[in-house]
């Protein structure tokens, strides 16, 4: 196809070239012809005008001559015939005519012949003294009449005595002349003597008394003689024309065309010459109506072609060719560019497709690997449970660790691939940021304890409790960063802070990045490495903005404006700044610019020492960007790194907060509100963290730097107002503790009690970072809390110490008996299209004492559940033909909400709303595949929970307990 297209294209191009050339040539030819024709027309015009000019001139001259001959005729008739004796003789005539010859330029001579009747010949001859001769110079034979020349101009004196009637031409002329009374001309013939072509003009001379309208007979009768002249046309015309301009260019032929079929030449070459195609014919009127004359003019040579007729078309031709070439070249170029562009597009599409394919391939492969890997890991787990000797166990454990590492790597690759394929979507669900942070912290708690690193979280009070965003991804980001930090930190601390973006800037403004990453600081580091810094652990952090000065600023800011910010109309968007600060090995300067590039670690030795693939940070970056934030970091080798990222969340409205708080994670116990606690901690940042956790539990906090200060302040306070308030708790950092402290403290406190400063002995809690710290605590300490601190662990500890263990706890020690209690006597509907499942589920529930009814489809269930019904709960299979569990649930909920509306309306009118029980049947999904998506789908369509099939006692209990215990009265 491409070849065909190319050929077609080639042909097209060829045709275009041919067409272009053809057009150019035709334009060239056309313009050339035009110029030629124009030139010809001009030449013809010139010819016509020249011809007409000559014709007119000859005619005029001729007319002049004829007129003069006419005058001569009058002269003769006057002086010869009307004078007696005649006053004219040969001498006078010759003299006169010679003198007036200039008047007749075309006549080379005139002569007068008298009309002699034969009867008068004798007399005439004797009178003249000569005999009448013929043209041949012989004595004339006898004729009817004669016309002998009696007077002649000197130039033609040779014709004296010759009878003009003897020449045939002359005779005809004479006869015609006397009949018409006008000048007549002969046809051209060779003249005597000169042998030139010429014509003879004959003019009759009448005796007087001839009337104007005389008849031919009268004229003939009155004829006295004939005046004649010879026009030597050839030489005369020659002379005449010579006087005119342009004589050389044209040839002229004069014809006598009296006999139209046989024109007689009068002037010019016998065979017409010159440029034949262009000629002009002018009629000549010599005054003789019998004779007709024509003048033919033509150029001697073909009129020359003007140079412009060649150059101009050639110029046009060249211009057209050039223009055509330009168009052609442009078109060619355009085609080429277009072709290139198309190829580029193709390549681009291919490249994009390849990229997508790559990501998809990665995703698929990762997924495919994950499945068998799960099997491998599971088997390893099982293998580890069996009896193994030590070596085997070691091998198996190693294999398991490797497998887990592989799985986590695959998960990361999968994430990365998903992000690249654009398949990763950010959720928007309300979540509690603080509890997520606590969870992450607890993930790493064992590691941090092992290493003896302080791990702490601090969330600014201004950060809303519940925000809308993607908790999973947020957790992943934090986990990645903290995980990295834990990996690369051997001493010091890891500190996670969350602030609102706008007020976090307050502290950051003055200190810019300059020099933070630079080497200039490294010397200082060495000098200062002995002193302690105002950071969480006292080690220096890379980002000096995180030291106590700024932190204090942030805190004080919060103290000052806690109300102002909440009372204001809050924006919908919450931008958080999260800092993860560690005092680890830092990132080498040379590697800092490729930290976020996938599979790039600081250097190859890193992966040997610390493991990992280096994909985590790139994923983190992607995730942060997906969440509308930015990530950057400040790092100094051997000092530590601080990663800072922003994340944009939506603020939840109040109702949603209340809702989610109920359902989200474990709510913190509320029993501590109003309690007071003392923190003894010399490090301000650290005690701020501790304070934060206690505040979350609702405990009022006071801070003292040392135990002594604490005791002092206790004394002072309680002497002022000794209210029997909640028991004091004293939390003491390990730093402020030393051996024997417990005894001292105990004594002091006892003393205080005796002085009535405290009503009860405060509980003493020690905060430790490392496991081994526990050992050195004294016996008088009530309990020890292992860092990292989490609100929930602190709460658990406090409950334990204060003896506040809740009765709830007992319930957790449930069992079949409990389940039996819960389910006994309850009406439960089980819906499943699979009879076997139905039977099993039903009997399982029956076993716990429930009264079970079964339905085999969603529709049956709907008809059974028409309100009002007796059921306390409903177990619904998710996947059913016709109407699946989700749809059925939606229908049920719809029914209920309608009913509830009616009830509430009715109830309100009756004013007994307290008695009203809202219809809400607990619906639990039964599903074999317990994956998150299904669970979410369940909640979305209004289900209350799910249990996996086949039933597991524990899970069943948990699911059922939520509903059947919480409102037992309404159910029974």
């Amino acid at each position, binding site marked *: 196809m491409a070849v065909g297209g190319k050929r077609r294209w080639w042909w097209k191009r060829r045709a275009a070239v041919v067409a272009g050339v053809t057009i150019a040539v035709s334009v060239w030819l056309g313009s050339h012809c035009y110029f030629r024709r124009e030139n010809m027309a001009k030449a013809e015009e010139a010819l016509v005008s020249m011809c007409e000019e000559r014709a007119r001139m000859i005619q005029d001259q001729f007319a002049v001559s004829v007129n003069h001959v006419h005058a001569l005729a009058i002269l003769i008739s006057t002086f010869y015939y009307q004078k007696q004796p005649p006053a004219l003789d040969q001498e006078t005539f010759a003299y006169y005519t010679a003198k007036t010859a200039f008047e007749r330029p075309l006549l080379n001579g005139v002569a007068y012949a008298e009309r002699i009747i034969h009867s008068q010949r004798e007399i005439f001859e004797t009178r003249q003294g000569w005999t009448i001769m013929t043209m041949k110079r012989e004595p004339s034979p006898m004729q009817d009449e004669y016309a002998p020349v009696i007077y002649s101009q000197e130039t033609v004196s040779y014709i004296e005595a010759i009878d003009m009637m003897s020449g045939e031409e002359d005779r005809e002329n004479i006869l015609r002349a006397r009949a018409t009374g006008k000048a007549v001309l002969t046809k051209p013939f060779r003249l005597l003597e000169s042998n030139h072509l010429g014509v003879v003009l004959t003019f009759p001379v009448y005796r007087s008394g001839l009337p104007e309208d005389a008849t031919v007979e009268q004229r003939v009768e009155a004829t006295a003689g004939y005046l004649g002249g010879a026009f030597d046309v050839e030489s005369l015309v020659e002379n005449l024309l010579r006087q005119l301009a342009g004589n050389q260019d044209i040839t002229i032929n004069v014809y006598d065309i009296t006999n139209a079929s046989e024109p007689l030449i009068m002037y010019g070459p016998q065979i017409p010459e010159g440029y034949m195609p262009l000629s002009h014919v002018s009629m000549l009127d010599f005054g003789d109506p019998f004779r007709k004359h024509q003048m033919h003019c033509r150029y001697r040579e073909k009129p020359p072609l003007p140079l412009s007729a060649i150059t101009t078309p050639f110029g046009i031709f060249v211009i057209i060719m050039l223009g055509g070439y330009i168009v052609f070249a442009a078109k060619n170029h355009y085609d080429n560019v277009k072709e290139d562009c198309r190829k580029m597009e193709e390549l681009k599409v291919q490249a994009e497709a390849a990229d997508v394919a790559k990501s998809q391939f990665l995703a698929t492969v990762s997924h495919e690997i994950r499945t068998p890997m799960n099997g491998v890991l599971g088997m390893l787990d099982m293998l580890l449970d069996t009896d193994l000797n030590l070596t085997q166990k070691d091998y198996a454990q190693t294999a398991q660790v490797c497998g887990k590492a592989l799985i986590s790597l695959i998960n990361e690759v999968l994430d990365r691939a998903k992000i690249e394929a654009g398949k990763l979507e950010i959720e928007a669900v309300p979540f509690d940021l603080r509890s997520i942070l606590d969870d992450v912290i607890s993930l790493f708690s064992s590691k941090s304890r092992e290493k003896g690193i302080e791990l702490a979280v601090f969330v600014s009070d201004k950060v809303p409790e519940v925000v809308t965003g993607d908790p999973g991804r947020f957790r992943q980001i934090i986990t990645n960063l903290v995980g990295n930090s834990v990996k690369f930190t051997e001493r010091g601390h890891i500190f996670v802070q969350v602030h609102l973006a706008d007020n976090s800037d307050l502290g950051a403004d003055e200190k810019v990045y300059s020099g933070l990453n630079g080497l200039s600081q490294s010397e200082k580091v060495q000098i200062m490495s002995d002193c302690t810094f105002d950071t969480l652990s006292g080690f220096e952090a890379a980002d000096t903005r995180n030291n106590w000065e700024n932190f204090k600023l942030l805190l004080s800011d919060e103290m000052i404006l806690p109300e102002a910010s909440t009372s204001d109309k809050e924006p919908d968007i919450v931008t958080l700044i999260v800092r993860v600060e560690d005092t680890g090995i830092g990132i080498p300067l040379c590697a800092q610019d490729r930290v976020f590039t996938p599979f790039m670690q600081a250097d190859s030795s890193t992966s040997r020492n610390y493991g990992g693939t280096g994909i985590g940070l790139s994923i983190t970056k992607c995730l942060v960007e997906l969440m509308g934030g930015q990530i950057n970091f400040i790092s100094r080798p051997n000092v530590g790194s601080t990663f800072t990222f922003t994340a944009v969340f939506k603020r939840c409205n109040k109702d949603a907060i209340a809702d989610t708080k109920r359902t989200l994670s474990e709510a913190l116990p509320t029993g501590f509100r109003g309690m007071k606690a003392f923190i003894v901690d010399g490090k301000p940042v650290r005690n701020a963290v501790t304070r934060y956790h206690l505040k979350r539990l609702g405990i009022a906090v006071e801070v003292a730097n040392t135990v002594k200060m604490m005791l002092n302040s206790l004394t002072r306070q309680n002497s002022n107002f000794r209210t029997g308030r909640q028991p004091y708790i004293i939390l003491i950092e390990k730093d402020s503790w030393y051996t024997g402290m417990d005894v001292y403290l105990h004594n002091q406190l006892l003393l205080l009690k005796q002085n009535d400063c405290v009503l009860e002995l405060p509980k003493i809690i020690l905060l430790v970072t490392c496991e081994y710290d526990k050992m050195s605590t004294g016996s008088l300490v009530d309990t020890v809390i292992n860092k990292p601190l989490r609100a929930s662990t602190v709460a658990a500890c406090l409950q334990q110490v204060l003896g506040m263990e809740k009765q709830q706890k007992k319930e957790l020690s449930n069992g079949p008996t409990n389940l039996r209690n819960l389910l006994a006597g309850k009406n439960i509907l089980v819906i499943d299209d699979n009879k076997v*499942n139905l*039977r099993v*589920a039903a009997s*399982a529930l029956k*076993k716990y004492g429930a009264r079970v009814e079964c339905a085999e489809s969603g529709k049956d269930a709907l008809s059974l559940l028409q309100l009002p019904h007796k059921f306390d709960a409903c177990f619904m299979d998710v996947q059913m033909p016709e109407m699946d569990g989700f749809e059925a649930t939606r229908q049920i909920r719809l029914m209920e909400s309608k009913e509830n509306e009616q009830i509430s309306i009715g109830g309100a009118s009756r004013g007994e709303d307290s008695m009203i029980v809202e219809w809400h049947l607990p619906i639990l999904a039964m599903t074999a595949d317990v994956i998150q998506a299904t669970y979410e789908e369940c909640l979305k369509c209004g289900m209350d929970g799910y249990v996996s099939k086949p039933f597991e006692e524990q899970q069943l209990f948990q699911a059922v307990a939520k509903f059947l215990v919480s409102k037992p009265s309404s159910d029974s």
Partner: protein
Amino acid sequence: MSLMALREQLNVLVNSMFLEGLLDQQFRQLQMLQDASSPGFVAEVITLFCEDSERMLTELTKLLDQAVVDYQKVDAYVHQLKGSSSSVGAQNVKLACIQFKQFCEENNKEGCLSALNMVKHQYYSLRSKFDTMLQLEQRIQAYGSEQQN
């Protein structure tokens, strides 16, 4: 044969089935559900399961015989079969069903056919054991009623 011997035989049979991987924990759950109030519970469930499974296997065979296979229908049946087998604790059948389901999702006819054969094979081998088990149960019950008489 004494009642004890019969019980012993039944136990041996069930245990061997466990060992072979034909059954899993779920079957134990079923056995636990059977008590004085519902003496024939296990037998009932097994009968139900067999009836159900055979019906579905016939349907599946029919569906896969067609030139154009309606994979959605096939999937629905396989899902049901999987559900009931997991309820009964028929581990091998369940695993075969999972395999089947995968082929079905890939619209892989070859795979489906072989998977169906696998399921059938597993089912029939289980079925024969179940038959023995049911006979034993019946005899035990008959014994029990005789004794009562």
